[in-house]
């Protein structure tokens, strides 16, 4: 049986890396006593798959993980045994069954959505103009680890929600296809906010199947 569990990762737990998170899940599921399916071999690992790595320090609001079980369980029962043993910062949002033959989630991600709160000491009007200017471009050259690429097509949406007390709240949807994946840090950088302190909330990981 394959379950798709949607969860949030918040609080101090955001300082656990992607690999750490896999382990956090593995141990939580073991505490819950669910019949995890394991890979074979001398070093069996539980079968778990996260859709897309959540960078260190980012809050995840609705992150999906696929969990394979050896025995079918009732989804409600699954949640009931899991909720009390989750560590601080991890919350269950939804549990759904997925066809076991369904393609791996990593291959299905098309976009990610972010809400970013960033220090920005500009009046709302200036900020809005700056964003509009940027979106009007067809090419925004960005460099990461020595590689130059065009950031603009990766920004599917970018909106300013609010500016107050020198902080701006931005919404963005970034393309997340293989080889064409946008990072919110790059967007801030392009806005001239590369050094500003920001809090990143990934609000959605969009999969092909779910829209």
């Amino acid at each position, binding site marked *: 049986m394959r379950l798709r569990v949607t969860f949030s990762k918040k609080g101090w737990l955001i300082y656990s890396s992607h690999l750490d998170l896999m382990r956090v899940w*593995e*141990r939580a599921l*073991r505490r819950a006593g669910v019949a995890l399916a394991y890979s074979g071999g001398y070093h069996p690992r539980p079968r778990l798959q996260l859709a897309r790595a959540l960078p260190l320090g980012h809050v995840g609001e609705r992150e999906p993980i696929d969990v394979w079980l050896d025995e079918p369980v009732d989804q409600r029962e699954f949640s009931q045994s899991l909720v009390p043993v989750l560590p601080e910062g991890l919350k269950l949002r939804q549990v759904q069954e997925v066809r076991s033959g369904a393609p791996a989630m990593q291959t299905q991600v098309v976009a990610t959505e972010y809400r970013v709160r960033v220090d920005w000491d500009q009046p709302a009007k200036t900020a809005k103009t700056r964003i509009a200017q940027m979106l009007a471009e067809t090419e925004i050259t960005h460099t990461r680890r020595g590689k130059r690429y065009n950031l603009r097509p990766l920004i599917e949406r970018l909106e300013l929600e609010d500016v107050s007390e020198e902080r701006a709240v931005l919404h963005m949807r970034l393309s997340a296809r293989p080889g064409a994946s946008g990072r919110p840090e790059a967007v801030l950088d392009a806005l001239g906010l590369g050094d500003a302190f920001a809090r990143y909330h990934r609000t959605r990981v969009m999969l092909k199947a779910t829209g």
Partner: protein
Amino acid sequence: MQVDLEKLERILPTVQKPGRYVGGEYNSVVKDWNAITTRVCLAFPDIYDLGMSNLGLMILYRILNDLPDVLAERAYLPWVDMITAMRGAGMPLYSLESKRPLGDFDIIGISLPYEQVYTNALEMLDLAGIPLRSDEREGSHPLIVAGGHATFNPEPMAAFFDGFVIGDGEEAMVELVEVYRATSGLRREARLKALAQVRGVYVPRFYRVRYAEDPSPGMGERGPIAAIEAKTPDTPLPVVKRVVRTLPPPTTRLIVPTIDVSHNRAAIEINRGCTRGCRFCQAGMAMRPVRERPVEEIIQATDTILRQTGFEEIGLLSLSPSDYSQIDTLVKRMVERFADEHLSISLPALRADSFSVTLAETIAGGRRTGFTFAPEAGSDRMRATINKSIPSRQVFDVVSEVFRRGWQTIKLYFMIGLPGEEMEDVRAIVEMVKTVHMIGRRVHGRQAQVNVSVNTFVPKPHTPFQWVGLDGSRSIRDKQALLRREIRGRGLKLDYNDPEASMLEAVLARGDRRLAEVIHQAWALGARFDAWDDQRDFGAWMRAFAKTGLDPDLYAYRQRSPDELLPWEVVSTGVRKRFLLREYERSRRREELSDCREECHACGILTAFQGESSPVWCCPEPDPEATKDR
């Protein structure tokens, strides 16, 4: 008041592994700060990654948090990047649970598992804004106490701590907390006085050390110790370490880290103490008597640990697992019981006998990682000197069995610099390694791998070698050069200690109260993380010695005479000096002493803890012949 969390949030993205500094792990305990009268912070003076696998700290954390009116939180020493960031931001060292500055606690218990953390302990106090020296602190400051293995010689750190818990901490720490609470209305001096009455607690300020009028160079104006005195008649001298009669129930609600740490697994102690009597081993001498945990208790606790933590691996902790009387039953039952739960089991190095191979095979199932043995010395005669007598023949037989059963990698532990060691003994290490490698190649061809770890022996207090000086640095370098020359090439890997690190370890292990000045100076000059090869600042230590006029060589290399009063005699482990001396003499005659599980050699433990002993202790009835030694 909590530290400024907003500031912290801005610091965290700028440092490596910020998960070290945030707490919130599963099974960590956050109590209502204002509802609790006594607040204890358990501090580990090295980074989180190492401190999280310290079972002693975890045990005390549980015991204290189980008391209704006490809370216990944790702090680890931040890594250098975080220290710099915190100092830059004016943020004091805080506890992981409540994020309170350490200065807000009533008691800070610092764990001193080994000597190389001494400057780190000072760094923690300073980062917390707490005066370093006990006599600079006042009633408003927390009580600063230490526990852990290094406190068997508390003297080098005596100036910095208000008290030391010597020996098993489970009961003593609770008593200490209770006495401290009960005396809360009193002046600081009176409270410390009361603490000094807790069995196993050493409060340095109530002792005076006199030095002989020996103007030998390097000892300042003063020579070796002439007398150790208690300032008042009701102060115990020596302070006898604490022992728990039986091992308290194992801690099962272990904290589960949310980042990767070293030894990222559960742990359970299967026995405490060791009867082998290896003469170099401080733990083996100082942690007597042997107390075993029943098989049933271990199995039950493992089951509970599994359910409460979800760990996928458990380490069975022991100084010598092969000596656990029912190791065979234990391992078989563990494997049987937890096979379906995907729990792997790990054991420390086993003795080199054929039984160990079967044991390891049972634990490993089909897996074959490395197989570890610790022959400790290369030649039969050196092994007789240290009382770890396994004939080389036997090592080779076992190794060949290990290779044949599918292991391709063997790890061997040796020591150099043992008393009476000659170059030929070091050559014997080389021979042994080469023979082992050859045996491996016969079975696995070029896949055979032998990893060799050669530690420099540092003579430790409370052992039969406590009088011996560290082997000279010239000699050590020559021995290491020989090993480097000979142990190399495909399938062989060698590692050994930096001689400067060993020298520092020896100085700190063998020091007296005067060393506090050096430690303080070295820290002020920037020494910290002395156990880390890439951080150790040996130059700072040498400058500190020069400034204080003390000679490090006299601490590290001097052979001490049997009638010299040793700094650590202010503490008693229960093992008599007389017994240690006889053992030292026997070592020079290369005479072995049998495992005292079979016959008691009257080391003094049973006398020291008369009335406290229990049938679960592994000491047999003392042999009247041996007791003649008294």
